[in-house]
C-alpha cells in the first residue's frame, strides 16, 4: 500500500530525516508507557480484603459401574447470592473444578441461588438439593461458608424450550451489542489502514479498568473536585461520571496509539505484516501491565452492582443490564447514522473503500485515520465499561472478546463498519443461544465454526466487497 499515508505522508517523509523520526518515536513510546503507568498505579492499591465469602461447589453425582457413587465437577453454572432483602450481592460462574467463590460483606443471612438454566443439558439438580439454599448468620464458622449443589440425570426439563431460548436470546443481545460496539473500531482501523489490530482487546480492557480506577479506586489528587455532584472526597467518581470519562480517555488512548506509534510507522513505510506483529507485542505489553497493576481478580463497579432482576415473562434482566443495552443500542445507532450522513462519516467510508481513490479526491486520509483511531478507542472503552457493568472488570476482559470480535467482523465483512455492527451482534447472539447445546465452558466454539464457514463460502462477509479479499 504505497499511498497509505496519502500525499502528506510522503512529503513529510522527505522532509524529516530518518533518525529524527526514530528519535521522536522513542520519546513517544516512552511517553505512552509513562502515561499509562501514571494512570494506572492507583489500581494496585485495591488489595485483596480477607472478608467473608461463600464457596459454592457444584458436583454431578452418579454411580459408576461398580455401584459406587462418584462426583464430577460441573463447570459454567451461574450462582447468585442475594441478601435478606433480595438484593444481589454477587454472581459467579463455577470454574472447571465446579467451584465459585462469592465474597460477601459480612456475616449475615443470605440466599444462594443456582441458575438452573445454566446447568449442562441433560442434568438437573438432584432431588436432595434445591436450587435455592439459605445461609444463616450463625452458619459461618470460619470466614468461608461452603455450599454444595448436587446434580444428576434430568427427568425432563424444568423450563420449556421457548423460555430457555428467550432468556438466552436476551443474554445474547446484551453480549452482541457490546461486541458490535467493540468491533466497529477494529473493522474501521482495518478498512482505513489495512492493519489488523491484535491489541484491540486491550483497548476494551483499558476502558473497563479506567472506569474502575475512576469509580472505585479514586485518585486522591482529584479530591478538590468534590464540589461537583457525583465526585467524592477521595477523588472517586460516580459511575455515571466515570463511564463517560473512561470513554473519553479511551478515545485519547486510541489517538495516542495512532499518533505515538502507528502514524510514525506509516510515515517510515513500515509494512503491514510488521505492524501486525507489533500489535501482538503491544497486546502482550498492555495485558501484563494491566495484570501487574490490577491483579487477576475480577471486580465490580461501586454502583449498580447489586440489583434485583426484573422478571418479564420468561426473561429476567436487571435494570442495569437493560439500561446498558439500550444505551449501547443508542450509541450504535448514532455511530451508524453519522457514518451514513455526516461529511466525515462519508469520508471515512470512502477511505475505507479505497484509500488511493479517496486521497485523489482530496480527502485528507491521515485525518480520517486519526478520527477512526479516536472513535475506535472510545467505542472500545465504552464496550469495556459496559461489559464491566454487565459482568465484572478484569485484566483480560477484552482479550477474551478479541476472538469473538474477529469472528464478528469477518462475518460482517472485514473493513466495513456496518458489517462490524451486524456481524458483532449476530456472533454475540449466536454464542449465547448456542450455549443451550454446547457446554457453557465451550460456548465460544461456535464462533470459530462461523469464522471457518464464512471464509469457506463467503470470504467477503455479509456486507464486504469481494475485491478486498484476494
Amino acid at each position: 500500500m504505497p499511498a497509505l499515508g496519502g500525499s502528506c505522508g510522503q512529503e513529510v517523509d522527505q522532509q524529516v530525516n530518518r533518525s529524527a523520526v526514530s528519535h521522536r518515536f522513542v520519546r513517544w513510546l516512552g511517553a505512552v508507557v509513562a502515561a499509562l503507568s501514571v494512570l494506572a498505579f492507583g489500581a494496585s492499591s485495591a488489595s485483596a480484603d480477607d472478608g467473608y465469602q461463600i464457596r459454592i461447589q457444584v458436583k454431578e453425582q452418579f454411580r459408576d459401574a461398580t455401584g459406587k457413587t462418584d462426583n464430577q465437577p460441573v463447570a459454567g453454572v451461574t450462582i447468585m447470592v442475594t441478601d435478606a432483602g433480595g438484593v444481589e450481592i454477587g454472581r459467579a460462574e463455577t470454574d472447571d473444578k465446579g467451584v465459585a467463590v462469592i465474597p460477601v460483606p459480612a456475616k449475615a443471612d443470605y440466599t444462594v441461588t443456582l441458575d438452573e438454566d445454566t446447568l449442562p443439558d441433560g442434568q438437573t439438580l438432584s432431588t436432595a438439593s434445591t436450587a435455592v439454599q439459605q445461609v444463616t448468620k450463625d452458619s459461618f464458622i470460619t470466614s468461608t461458608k461452603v455450599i454444595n449443589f448436587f446434580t444428576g440425570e434430568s427427568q425432563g426439563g424444568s423450563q420449556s424450550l421457548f423460555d430457555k431460548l428467550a432468556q438466552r436470546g436476551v443474554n445474547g443481545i446484551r453480549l452482541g451489542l457490546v461486541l458490535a460496539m467493540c468491533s466497529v473500531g477494529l473493522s474501521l482501523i482495518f478498512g482505513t489502514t489495512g492493519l489488523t489490530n491484535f491489541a484491540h482487546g486491550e483497548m476494551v480492557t483499558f476502558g473497563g479498568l479506567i472506569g474502575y480506577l475512576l469509580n472505585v479506586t479514586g485518585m486522591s489528587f482529584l479530591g478538590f473536585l468534590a464540589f461537583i455532584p457525583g465526585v467524592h472526597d477521595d477523588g472517586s467518581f460516580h459511575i455515571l461520571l466515570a463511564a463517560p470519562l473512561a470513554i473519553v480517555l479511551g478515545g485519547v488512548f486510541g489517538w495516542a496509539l495512532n499518533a505515538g506509534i502507528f502514524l510514525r510507522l506509516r510515515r517510515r513505510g513500515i509494512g503491514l505484516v510488521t505492524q501486525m506483529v507489533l500489535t501482538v507485542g503491544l497486546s502482550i505489553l498492555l495485558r501484563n501491565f494491566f495484570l501487574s497493576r490490577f491483579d487477576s481478580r475480577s471486580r465490580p463497579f461501586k454502583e449498580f452492582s447489586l440489583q434485583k432482576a426484573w422478571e418479564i415473562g420468561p426473561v429476567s434482566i436487571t435494570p442495569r443490564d437493560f439500561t446498558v443495552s439500550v444505551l449501547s443500542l443508542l450509541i450504535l445507532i448514532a455511530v451508524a447514522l453519522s457514518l451514513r450522513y455526516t461529511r466525515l462519516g462519508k469520508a471515512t467510508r470512502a477511505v475505507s473503500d479505497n484509500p488511493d481513490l479517496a486521497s485523489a479526491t482530496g480527502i485528507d486520509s491521515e485525518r480520517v485515520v486519526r478520527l477512526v483511531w479516536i472513535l475506535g478507542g472510545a467505542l472500545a472503552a465504552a464496550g469495556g465499561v459496559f461489559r464491566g457493568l454487565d459482568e465484572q472488570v478484569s485484566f483480560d476482559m477484552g482479550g477474551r472478546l478479541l476472538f469473538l470480535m474477529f469472528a464478528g467482523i469477518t462475518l460482517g465483512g472485514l473493513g466495513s463498519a456496518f458489517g462490524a455492527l451486524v456481524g458483532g451482534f449476530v456472533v454475540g447472539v449466536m454464542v449465547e443461544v448456542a450455549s443451550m447445546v454446547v457446554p457453557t465452558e465451550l460456548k465460544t466454539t461456535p464462533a470459530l465454526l462461523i469464522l471457518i464457514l464464512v471464509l469457506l463460502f463467503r470470504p467477503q462477509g455479509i456486507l464486504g466487497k469481494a475485491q478486498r479479499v484476494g
Partner: protein
Amino acid sequence: MDWTLIIENSLKGLIGINAVYFAIAAIGMNVQFGYAGLLNFGQAGFMACGAYGLGMTAHYFDISFWWGIPLGILFSVLLGLLMGVPTLRLRADYLAIVTIASAEIIRLVVRSVKFKTYFGGSDGINSFAQPFRKVGNSLGIEEADEYGFWPFRFTGRELWTLIVGWILVALLGFFVYKLMKSPWGRVLKAIREDEDAVRSLGKNVYSYKMQALIMGGVIGTISGMVFALDRAAVQPDNYSRDVTFYILTALVLGGVAKVSGSIVGPMMFWGLFTFMDNFLRQVAEDPIHLGNITLMKSTQVGQLNYILIGLTLILLMVYRPQGVFGNRQEMAFDGR
C-alpha cells in the same frame, strides 16, 4: 545480590529445555512466517497436538507410548488442514485470525470438563513418559544422578531430554536448511515475494502454502512432544495464545528466514529472560517505593518480564524487523 546464582541460571537458561522446545517451535514457525510469509499465530495449538498425542496413548487409547508420535503428527496435519483450507486462498490476515482462534479453541476443548475422559480436563495428563525415560536409563543416564560441570549441571532426567531435544534441533535445522536450498524452498520464498508471479509460472501456490503450513505445524508438534516429555505431564494452560507470541518474539529476536536465527533466537530469549527474572527477583525482594507509591513488589516481577517481552517485540519490529541475524532483503513479504 547473588551474582553467581544469577549467572549460573542465565547460562543454564541459554541451553535449557525451554530454549530447546522454543527452538524447535521457532524452526517450524520460521518455515511458515520466514520462508512462506504465512502468519501462524496458533503454533501453541500444534504443540498441544503433539503433547496430547503422546498423553492420550496412555490416558485414553491405552496403546504403546510410541504410537503417540504418529498420532500427534496426524492431529497436527488435521489441524493444519482445518486452518489452511479456508484461509490460504485469502489475504494473510485471515490465516492469522483463524490460527489464533483455533489454538484458543483447542485449549478450551482439552481443558473442558465435558471431554475430560479424552484429555484429562484442566489437570491434564500425567505418567505417560516412562517408556521414554527407560530408553535414557538403558543408555546409562541415571535419572537421579547429577551430570555436568559448573554452570551446566543437570540431573540425568533433564540431561536425557536435553540430549534428545538438541539432536532434534540439529536434525530439523539441517533439514529445513537443505529444504530451503532445494527447488521446493525456492518456490516457497518466491511465493513470499510475489505470489502472482509464481502463479504465472504455473505453480500451485495454494498447495505450496498448505505444505509449508503443515510442515511448520508438524515441527511445532515435535516441539510440543519434547516439552511434554520433559515435564512428564500435559497441561492445557501451557498451550495458551501467549506461548505462540513468545515463540514469535524469540524467532524475530534471532532473525527471520534464517535457520540459525530460529535456533539462536530462542537461546537468547531464554538467556535474557532467565537473567531478567533472577535479577529482578533479587532486586525486588524488598518492595521498591517512589514516595508512597509502590513501584514494584516481588509478585509483580513475572508481569514485568512479560511487559519487557512485549516491549522487545515492539522495538524489534520498529528498528530491526529482520531480527539480530536476519537479512533485510528477506523481509520483502509485506504486501497488502
